[in-house]
């Protein structure tokens, strides 16, 4: 599957790495539910590191949509919550 690591780019990830990524993802979700920013950042960084290490980087000019997107790990807890809320954190660029 194709995984995007936000602010880094896209990777192709196969095999058991996908399962390990999903496990980390569950833990990241739990950390967010506990409002544990340090743990959340740690899991998100681990996820990005796993994708970087075990995945194969897609060329920059590849236009394939991603199957999964790892959110950025450098957000504060408040920013992460806003990112997932209806208000959103990504600015509107439509005209």
């Amino acid at each position: 599957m194709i995984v995007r690591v936000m602010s880094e780019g896209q990777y192709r990830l196969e095999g058991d790495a996908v399962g390990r990524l999903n496990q980390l993802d569950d833990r990241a979700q739990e950390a967010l539910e506990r409002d544990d920013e340090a743990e959340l950042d740690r899991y998100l960084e681990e996820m990005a590191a796993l994708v970087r290490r075990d995945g194969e980087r897609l060329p920059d000019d590849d236009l394939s949509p991603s199957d999964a997107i790892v959110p950025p790990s450098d957000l504060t807890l408040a920013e992460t919550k806003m990112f997932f809320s209806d208000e959103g954190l990504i600015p509107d660029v439509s005209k």
Partner: protein
Amino acid sequence: MGLMSRTSNVVRAWISKLLDRAEDPAVTLDYSYERQLELLQNVKKGIADVVTAKKRLELQTKKLETELPKLDEQARQALAADREDLARAALERKAFAQEQLQSLDQQIDDLAAQQNKLAASEKRLSAKVEAFRTQKETIKAQYSAAEAQVKIGEAATGIGEEMADTGLAIQRAQDKTEQMQARAAAVDELVDSGTLEDYTSSGTSLDRELAQISAQNQVDADLERLKGELASGAPQKELEKETK
């Protein structure tokens, strides 16, 4: 649902909001392309803004670094004049300036990281924009309306992710830059108005007292020099020679 799925949902929703307004596939392609070009301009501007902010902080660092020896010298003069209170005040200012310097170093590093991130974003987005430009003409020319719809959906989503990502990176760099500009302005004001030199409660009187000590030292030194000259008599002869 894990965070990756939630993130995908957020990004997909952002993309459909962006492309919602156009029903005609060809219009969607052109509209998306226009926004991509705009975003590329914005990311370039974002990089320029970060560089400007970074330069300003670097200038500030230089300015503060020149303050340090001055404050040291003031403290030395105050001590020589047996004014430990003044020496302490001068050293407190020095400590404050050093603190500012450390925080400036950190901020400059942060801005450099933002600059690198934006530059990498720009590189990725421009590669995708170029690929999209080629693909959109192919789609327009070769596919039936129904097929084109699917192809457009894929291409627009693929590049839409990069646009959302870049949009967020620009926003975050801008926030950081603004924060640091505001702090830089505050420190600039402190240094320029000389407040860094009298941020203590003793205020300008401290400067005056230090200046007085400095002047006193100069007067004492001059007196010593003149006394020495009189005792040796040498400069007197020099003066006579000159008047002849």
